[in-house]
C-alpha cells in the first residue's frame, strides 16, 4: 500500500466519540480508532450517528448505505468493522486478518472477562464513572458468566481505583475492603492506607486507617511522601505557579481557564 487519497470531509457532520473525548472528521480517523479501541465499537457498530457521519461528514455515502443494509440483514458488528476497514482501504488484507484475529480472541472471552476488558479500557481513557458502572454490572452478572473469586477481587480493586479517581473515597474504601477480603493482596491494603492519608474529613480518615490495619510498613509512608513530592514538582503544579506569577488581570484569566479545564476534565471522567 502507498499513499491513500483522503476524501474531502464536512466538519459540520463530524462524529463525537465520547469515550475518547475526540471528534473524528474522516473515515480514516474512525478506522484508526476502531483498530486501536475495538472494544468501544464491538457492541453496536455502526450506530446511527456513525452512519450519519459516514454519509454526510466523511463523504462515504455508498459505504453508509451498504452498512445500513448489512446491519438490517443481521451482520455482526465485528464483520461490519472489518468491512469498513476493507472498503475504505485503510487496512491491507494482512492487517485486516490480524484485526480479525484480535476481535475473535476478544469474542472468545467469558462475559465477565470481556466486560472487564471494556471497563479497563474506559479506566485507561480516564472515563472513571463509566468504568465504575461497568465494574458494578460485572459484579451483578449471573453464575456461569466466568466471574471467579479472583476475577471478582480484581474487578473490585479496579472499581475502587475508579472511585478514588473520582474523589469518592468512601465507595473506594468499601470496594478495596471487599477486594482485600477476596485476594489478600497487600497492595490493596496499601491503597486503603493512602486513602486515609488523603482523606480530609475527620472520622472517615480514622475509619480508612482502621481498615488498612495497624501493621503499616514504614516504606509505605516513604512511598506516599515520594509521590506527594513528585506531584508537588509536576507539570500541573508548575502551571499553577506560572499563573500566579503573572499580573493580577492575567492571573485571573489564567485561573478561570484552569478551573474551566478542571471542571471539564472532571465532567468527562464521570
Amino acid at each position, binding site marked *: 500500500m502507498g*499513499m491513500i487519497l483522503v476524501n474531502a470531509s464536512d466538519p459540520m457532520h463530524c462524529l463525537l466519540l465520547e469515550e475518547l473525548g475526540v471528534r473524528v472528521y474522516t473515515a480514516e480517523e474512525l478506522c484508526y480508532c476502531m483498530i486501536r479501541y475495538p472494544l468501544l465499537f464491538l457492541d453496536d457498530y455502526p450506530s446511527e450517528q456513525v452512519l450519519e457521519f459516514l454519509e454526510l461528514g466523511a463523504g462515504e455515502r455508498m459505504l453508509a448505505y451498504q452498512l445500513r443494509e448489512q446491519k438490517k440483514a443481521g451482520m455482526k458488528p465485528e464483520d461490519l468493522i472489518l468491512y469498513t476497514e476493507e472498503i475504505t482501504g485503510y487496512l491491507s488484507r494482512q492487517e485486516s486478518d490480524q484485526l480479525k484475529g484480535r476481535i475473535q480472541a476478544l469474542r472468545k472471552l467469558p462475559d465477565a472477562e470481556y466486560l472487564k476488558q471494556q471497563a479497563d479500557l474506559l479506566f485507561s481513557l480516564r472515563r472513571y464513572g463509566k468504568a465504575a458502572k461497568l465494574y458494578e454490572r460485572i459484579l451483578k452478572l449471573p453464575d456461569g458468566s466466568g466471574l471467579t473469586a479472583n476475577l471478582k477481587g480484581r474487578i473490585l480493586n479496579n472499581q475502587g481505583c475508579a472511585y478514588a479517581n473520582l474523589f469518592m473515597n468512601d465507595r473506594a474504601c468499601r470496594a478495596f475492603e471487599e477486594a482485600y477480603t477476596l485476594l489478600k493482596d497487600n497492595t490493596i491494603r496499601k491503597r486503603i492506607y493512602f486513602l486515609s492519608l488523603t482523606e480530609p474529613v475527620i472520622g472517615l480518615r480514622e475509619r480508612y486507617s482502621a481498615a488498612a490495619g495497624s501493621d503499616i510498613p514504614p516504606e509505605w509512608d516513604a512511598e506516599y511522601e515520594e509521590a506527594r513530592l513528585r506531584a508537588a514538582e509536576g507539570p500541573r503544579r508548575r502551571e499553577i505557579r506560572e499563573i500566579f506569577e503573572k499580573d493580577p488581570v492575567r492571573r485571573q484569566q489564567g485561573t478561570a481557564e484552569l478551573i474551566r479545564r478542571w471542571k471539564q476534565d472532571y465532567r468527562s471522567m464521570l
Partner: protein
Amino acid sequence: MGPRILGIDLTDNGASAALSDTEETFHFPTAVCRDRKHDRWYIGEEAYEQALSGKGILTDKLLRLAERGGTATVRGVRYEAKDLLGQFAQEVRGITVERTGGAAPSASVIVLEDYERAKAAALTESLASYGFPKGETFVISRAESFLYYVMSQPREVRTGQVGLFDLSDQSLSFYELRTRRDRNRLIVYAEQEKLDEAFTLTVLETESGEKLADNIMTSCAERLMKRKIFSAVFLTGKGFERYDWADSFMKAICQRRKVFIDQDLFAKGALVRGALLSEGRGDPGFTAICSGRAGATVTMNVEKNGHSMVFPVVTAGDPLSGAGVSLRLMPDSMTELELRIDPLNPKKVKSVRLPLSFLPQRPPKASFIDFLASFPDEQTMQVKLKDAGFGELFPKTDAFVEREVRLWE
C-alpha cells in the same frame, strides 16, 4: 458559422485587434486620453491628437504601468493603471465592433508577450469590469498564439521547424515551433527567445543604419537557424513594415523555405485559439507545449478505497490558468512521496521524491499530509507538503517541506 471572436495582441507600445469573421485588422498605440471637459475617452492615435491639441490628458505605456500597479491623475481624479488599461481595452473592443458592424463578440482572446500566470490572472480580473466577462476572456502567450496560427496553416508550411522573427522598437524575439510524435500523439512545442541584439527602429532612417540593422539580423538568422531544417519563416512587427533594408537577411532566410510577412500574426493566432476555446473544442488534435501551458505530465500513485490509481497532478498542454492541485493524503508505510514527470518524451521521464521525514513521530497511518502543487510557469512546478495532523487525535504542526521542480529542460 462559428461564434464571433475578438483577438487582441496587447503590448506596451500598441495593440492590434481582429475579429474572426472579417479580414480587417485594427492597430492602436496603447494610450488613453480623457477629454478635459467631457466624460469621453480617446485611444490610440486619436488619444495623441487630443493630447497634442490640449483637449485632454494622455497616459500611455499602459501595460507596464498596470503591471507595476501604477496610477495616473486625470482631471483631478486618480485612476489606477489597471482601470485605464481596462478602459483602453473596452474602447478597442467598441471601435473594432463598430467599424466592422455585426454583433458583439462572444469571446475574447488577449495575447501577452511576457506571459506569466499571475499577470494573466490580474489582467483577466481587471478587464472583467470593462466588458470582458471572466468565462469569455482568455489570456494566452504570444508563443501559444504563434503555435495555433502555424497549426492553422496548410500542412506544407510546417513540414519542418517554423521560425518567427518579431522585430519592433528595441525588441527582437525569435520564436521556434517544432513538432514530434509520441505514442501516436502529435506534440507541438513553441518557444520564444528574446534576443539581445534588439535595436531602435530609428536606425532604419539612414542608409548606414539600414546596413547595420541588416547585418545584425543576418547574423541572428544564421546563428538561430544553423543546422536546423526550417520549412517556413514568418516575419512580424513594426520593423518589417518595409523590408528593403534587409537584403542579406532576406537572402539568408529565403533559402529552400517559404517566408511570410504578417503584421497581425498574433491577433490572428488568438482568433484560432479563441474558436477552439469558445466552442468547447478543447482537443485540437495535438498537444501544445508553450508559454502558458504545462510542459509535462505529472502523476503520482495513490490508493482510493483499496484500489491503486494514477492521479494526474497536471497533464502536459493544460493551460496554466487552471492548473494546480490541493488534496489530502495519508501515507501508509512510505517514507517519501514519488512524483513521475513525463515531458512527453520517454527518454526524459524522471521521478521526483519528496521525503516525508518532516512529519512528527506518530503511529502508522495516523498522519494526514496536505499536498499543494502550483505552476507559476510552464517549466516549473512548486510542490508543498504540509503536516495536517490527524484530526483531534493528533493536532497538526507547522512542519512542511517545499520543493521547486523543473518540468523540462
